[in-house]
């Protein structure tokens, strides 16, 4: 019920929303929870396991009950805390975990069978018949479990991530946090203040408090005004600091666009912040804890502090007749504020025998609430008083078991909290997070005056570490009300008393877990699932530990507490993964011929981050094979042009450049003559091949290395490591020139003629022999020509500065077409290299040695090089290793799919008999047959053998002949032209 006055809501405006289709209304300043309570909606959801009716229990992000689904369609969002959701016009909320409706939920039968569904029951049954788990038990369990449902459609909403840097991060904008920010701001520190709420103030928003003789919120307003005027202070509202990471890195979730209906298109829903701070102060306040008693989960039962929030901040009366139950003075404030608001208080129940009050209401000292009655909403509470049982008619019950400092963030770097007997709570251990001070209620200081003082003190310490001088302090007068908690965790009695409302874990469950020897906190947690629900056990952890301690005859300190891990509040994957959607996951790298390839309607395929043309279809070609065969023929019979710019190119210069290459390559480069190129093999220190490529010497102390597209980054990193760490004294300077040059292969019998025409110069062997390189000029543009071949044809690679790439590609393709050739893509390139037995990463797959690949002749015996020692291990040179061979089909079946295995004819196709496998295969239009490369035990010694190829997956069985890896022109006459 809405009170006639008070509260921080704008009564001048009505905000309409729906809950389960019912049209309701509230005011700006409401949360969904306060608006629902104001509308008299007691039941807001169903519990996880027993599907019991549940009402709003808290007023913050720790809410265990009031989780709803917001919106519809792809935007539908499950498990939204009604207590955190600001109300906006047109908000649509649905209740969760109930069917057919919130009021009539069939699965409430679970509640009747509760005795059979206790802690860990599922570990003890559902085992027969064995196969039934997947089709019978598990689907049923899965359907019953879970809370809200995802839409199943792609999340359409934008989210973002951002970085921030500051001297001091203040976590929490209550009295302590504001005081810290004020002092630090005045001292000139670069401050970020994060507050979870949509307006700072913390508990002051919900309490009847005075600071400096005026309502506390006036001090808050004045303080905020001063802070906002400082350009060295940044206040981030709706921002929850979710995690502490190393060296002052924090994660924080900002709810950017969740409080409005019409969000401008690009405005993010959430922003996940990475904040780097030199120092920090945790002033996150404290969380109230309940007391467990029979049926303490009934709608209408809520935390005493939360009730004050609804009363004072939102002007909502929780009921017509309210009972207040607590074990500390703080609970009395709830009764006081209820009376002040004119709400009937049925009774104030204080478990402390000596307790007293001057409030004018029925007061029961040394008494305990033993039971809450009323299924769909509280009707009465039973009390055990020293003078006997009493039953109070109440439709709302405020419960306070005391307060737990919000120390979670101090534990994220493995810090453990310490137990305080006086406060019956865990307190943060100082210094467990480097550079972090803790202030206010988060340290167990529960008075406003104390919070202000502790904030000032923490600010002082932080400023010292920042080397800033502490400004003069004027601490305003503020409340110093007592607390005087006397621990009470669970009221003795029969029936089920809830500890973890969110996961339906009762006192019985915890005791049973202990009796089954799940005595460590971690065992109890895992066995009962206490603390694993969306509320992360914020409300229930300590109570459960205390009950466990009692059940195992230990005290709470010795029992300990489970580890707090990030995030402090659940963070949407869309926020943490912002930017990853669609193509945003990784940069796209485009060659200079990209647009032209698309214009020629080439399908583009990924090669690492690059895109490369698969083939260039021509009119009439219906299948990629037709295009591929044609492109191969172009190269073999006329001339083809391919963009090879994606290959890594590394420029090496310096006095020791040649020596350096001798070290990183297995073969020798110091003997390479200027103007010549050489094939090189590069191994990892572990003796396996990392990459291969050609390296050209273009000056006395100047080389250009090429790497494969796939390994370019790895090779560059490797070379940097070798030069900086292994041979730091050598003069070798490395720089990637991959992006500087556009490079095209021009291959085929007519390649020389084409290039002679293009360059207007003689390219005969005399001018440029095989494996030679020379500078060139194309109409004033300086470039470089290499006579190297990955196709086995007379071939060149021509390089020009990237800005001329598109222009040169277009021109080369035109000239090639004029000669009966044209552009060729990855498919043809692959066929051409397989015909020649050249290698790609299908063969250089990381497990192969130079020996396996038949490259042992490239391992120079006369010099040291990286991996030489490791490569000489017996296991890496064993004759029977799987070594590279060629394959051709000789039987009826011509299928040789890569990934197929090889067996001796007559052997069964099982692991023990496997002789090898296929790595690459293609149909060779040149040879008119299917050919393949693969690895075979003792391969080179088995040329001519017939083997049985088996591909279970694609049902291929093919008889193959083992042959040399080079299928075409083994003498290389074509290459030499």
């Amino acid at each position, binding site marked *: 019920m809405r009170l006639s006055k008070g509260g921080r809501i704008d009564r001048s405006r009505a905000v309409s929303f729906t809950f389960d289709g019912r049209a309701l209304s509230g005011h700006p300043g409401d949360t969904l929870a306060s608006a629902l309570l104001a509308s008299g909606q007691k039941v807001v959801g169903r519990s996880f396991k027993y599907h019991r009716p549940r009402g709003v229990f808290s007023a913050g992000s720790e809410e265990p009950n009031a989780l709803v689904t917001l919106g519809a369609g792809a935007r539908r969002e499950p498990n939204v805390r009604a207590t955190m959701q600001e109300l906006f016009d047109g908000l649509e909320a649905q209740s969760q975990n109930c069917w057919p409706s919130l009021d009539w939920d069939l699965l409430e039968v679970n509640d009747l069978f509760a005795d059979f569904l206790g802690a860990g029951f599922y570990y003890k049954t559902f085992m027969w018949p064995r196969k039934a788990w997947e089709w019978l038990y598990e689907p049923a369990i899965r359907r019953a479990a879970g809370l809200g449902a995802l839409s199943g459609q*792609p999340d359409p909403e934008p989210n973002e991530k951002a970085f921030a840097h500051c001297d001091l991060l203040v976590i929490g904008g209550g009295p302590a946090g504001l005081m810290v920010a004020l002092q630090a701001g005045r001292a000139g520190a670069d401050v970020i203040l994060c507050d979870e709420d949509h307006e700072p103030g913390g508990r002051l928003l919900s309490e009847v408090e005075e600071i400096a003789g005026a309502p506390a919120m006036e001090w808050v307003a004045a303080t905020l005004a001063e802070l906002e005027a400082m350009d060295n202070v940044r206040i981030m509202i709706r921002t929850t600091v979710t995690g502490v990471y190393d060296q002052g890195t924090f994660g924080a979730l900002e709810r950017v666009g969740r409080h409005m209906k019409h969000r401008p298109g690009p405005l993010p829903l959430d922003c996940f912040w990475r904040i780097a701070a030199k120092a920090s102060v945790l002033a996150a306040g404290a969380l109230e804890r309940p007391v467990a008693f029979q049926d303490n989960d009934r709608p209408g039962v809520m935390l005493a502090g939360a009730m004050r929030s609804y009363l004072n901040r939102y002007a909502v009366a929780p009921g017509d007749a309210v009972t207040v139950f607590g074990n500390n003075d703080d609970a009395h404030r709830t009764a006081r504020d209820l009376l002040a608001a004119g709400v009937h208080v049925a009774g104030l129940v204080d478990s402390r025998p000596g307790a007293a009050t001057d409030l004018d209401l029925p007061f029961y000292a040394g008494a305990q609430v033993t039971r809450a009655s009323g299924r769909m909403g509280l009707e009465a509470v039973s009390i055990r008083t020293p003078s006997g049982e009493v039953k109070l008619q109440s439709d709302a019950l405020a419960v306070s078991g005391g307060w737990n400092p919000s120390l979670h963030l101090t534990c994220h770097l493995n810090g453990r909290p310490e137990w305080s007997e006086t406060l019956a709570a865990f307190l943060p251990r100082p210094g467990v997070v480097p550079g972090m001070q803790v202030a206010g209620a988060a340290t167990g200081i529960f008075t406003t005056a104390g919070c202000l003082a502790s904030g000032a003190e923490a600010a002082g310490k932080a400023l010292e570490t920042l080397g800033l001088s502490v400004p003069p302090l004027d601490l305003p007068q503020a409340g110093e009300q007592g607390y005087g908690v006397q621990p009470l965790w669970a009221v003795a009695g029969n029936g089920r008393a809830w500890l973890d409302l969110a996961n339906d874990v009762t006192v019985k469950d915890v005791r049973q877990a202990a009796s089954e020897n799940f005595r460590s906190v971690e065992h109890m947690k895992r066995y009962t699932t206490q603390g694993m629900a969306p509320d992360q056990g914020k409300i229930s952890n300590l109570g459960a530990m205390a009950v466990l301690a009692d059940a195992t005859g230990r005290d709470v300190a010795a029992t300990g507490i489970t580890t707090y891990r990030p995030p402090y509040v659940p963070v949407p994957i869309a926020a943490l993964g912002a930017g990853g959607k669609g193509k945003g996951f990784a940069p796209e790298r485009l060659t200079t011929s990209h647009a032209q390839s698309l214009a020629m309607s080439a399908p583009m395929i990924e090669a690492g981050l690059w895109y490369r043309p698969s083939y260039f279809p021509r009119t009439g070609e219906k299948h990629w094979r037709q295009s591929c065969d044609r492109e191969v023929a172009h190269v073999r019979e006329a001339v083809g042009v391919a963009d090879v710019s994606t290959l890594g190119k590394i420029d090496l210069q310096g006095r020791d450049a040649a020596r350096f290459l001798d070290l990183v390559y297995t073969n020798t480069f110091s003997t390479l003559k200027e103007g010549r190129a050489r094939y090189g093999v590069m191994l990892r220190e572990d003796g396996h091949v990392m990459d291969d490529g050609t390296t050209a010497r273009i000056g006395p102390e100047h080389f250009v290395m090429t790497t494969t597209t796939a390994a370019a980054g790895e090779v560059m990193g490797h070379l940097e490591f070798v030069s900086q760490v292994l041979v730091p004294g050598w003069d070798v300077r490395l720089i990637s020139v991959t992006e500087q040059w556009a490079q095209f292969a021009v291959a085929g019998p007519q390649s020389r003629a084409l290039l002679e025409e293009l360059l207007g110069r003689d390219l005969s062997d005399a001018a440029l022999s095989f494996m030679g390189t020379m500078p060139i000029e194309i109409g004033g543009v300086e470039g470089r020509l290499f006579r190297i071949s990955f196709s086995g044809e007379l071939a060149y690679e021509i390089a020009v500065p990237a800005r001329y790439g598109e222009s040169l590609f277009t021109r080369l393709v035109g000239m090639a077409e004029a000669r009966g050739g044209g552009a060729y893509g990855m498919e043809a390139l692959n066929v051409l290299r397989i015909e020649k037995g050249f290698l790609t990463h299908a063969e250089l797959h990381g497990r192969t040695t130079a020996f396996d690949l038949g490259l042992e002749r490239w391992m120079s015996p006369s010099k040291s090089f990286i991996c030489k020692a490791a490569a000489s291990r017996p296991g890496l040179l*064993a004759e029977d290793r799987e070594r590279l061979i060629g394959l051709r089909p000789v039987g009826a079946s011509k299928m040789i799919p890569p990934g197929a295995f090889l067996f001796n004819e007559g052997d069964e196709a099982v692991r023990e008999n496997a002789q090898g496998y296929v790595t690459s295969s293609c149909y060779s239009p040149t040879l008119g047959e299917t050919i393949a490369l693969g690895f075979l035990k003792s391969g080179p010694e088995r040329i001519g053998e017939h083997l049985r190829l088996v591909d279970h997956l694609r049902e291929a069985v093919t008889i193959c002949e083992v042959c040399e890896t080079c299928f075409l022109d083994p003498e290389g006459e074509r290459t030499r032209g």
Partner: protein
Amino acid sequence: MRFSGLRVLKEGLTGNRGWGPHWRDPAPKPAYDIVIIGGGGHGLATAFYLAKEHGLTNVAVLEKGYLGGGNVGRNTTIVRANYFLPGNSEFYSHSLKLWEGLENELNYNVMHSQRGVINLFHSDGQRDAAARRGNAMINQGDDAELLDREGVRRLLPYLDYDQARFPIYGALHHKRGGTARHDAVAWGFARGASARGVDLIQNCEVTGIDTSGGRVTGVQTSRGAIKARKVAIVTAGRSGQVAQMAGLRLPIESHILQAFVTEGLKPVIDNVVTFGMGHFYISQSDKGGLVFGGDLDFYPSYAQRGNLPTAEHVMEAGMTLMPMIGKARVLRSWGGIMDMTPDGSPIIDRTHIEGLYLDCGWCYGGFKAVPGSGFALAHLLATDRPHDSAAGFRLERFRDGQGLMDEEGTGAQHNTH
């Protein structure tokens, strides 16, 4: 006590007072035939199989903290046998067969759910590698199926087939793969071992390994000295530290692997899906949480927690592959300590110290190996001969280069896996 639906019914009717402890809490005896250091999944499984297969029960499992508190209690619960290198194939195949009988063998519902593991591929090259893997699995006698793009779409309609940065070409489907309730596996083995007479001793930290004349004689612990004829180090994550007590240096670096779980949601992901290109894998627990993870943080750590860059990368991978999970909220994150070997494969072997045995180096694949590893180590401890399924897990393979098992092909050296 035997667990069954009937028992649950009976106990329910009598106030659940009859359930006894799942395992005993004995005080350590002065001497045992075999001491197993480490009460995680592998250690407990070893104890179970020593008792069951070899009738050896004068055995103690020494656990520094609580049973199942290591990686078996913090992982993404995936169970599969989809390796392709000899040495790994036969081991994980055997382990999966043990999984399939585990509930009945342990009389404990570990919720082994064979919901299928789907490994996506994103290029022709990856398809060929997947095909080789799949064929190797079938050669081994396990199941595999190659799905094309449409086949994947039928199983996983919610993936982004149009916009994902790395297009979905197809997948390798391993139907017998799936998940299990990780804690229950540890508890089930513990209960089984304890019932057969093995002593499970918690809060008992090993502080030294005693040897004399090149043979092991016992261990020093926080609860006193314990003599033993044979000692097995089964402390993945801490293998290096424990082995050091016997003066051993291992081919192991400890790295962190993070994992994440979301709030409970109604069923939406029915299989295990892995996205190699983006280092992302995900499944949904029976409680409804999406359980997912990615690659290592890639720096040595014993902190059991990771940092944001890896966490963010994992989430970004999830968003490009299956943007429908965007509104699921990450509830908890944690980090496990991975025993990383140079080739990414484990070690189950004797050491040069007589009577001292190693079971370590499980990298990020230890959970599915729990039964197989326990079975093989029990066999080695009992017979001093490696079990056929684990003969490839030699400690010496790095020295002699024989039988290296680098499934990823990123190099048989540290920091590449």
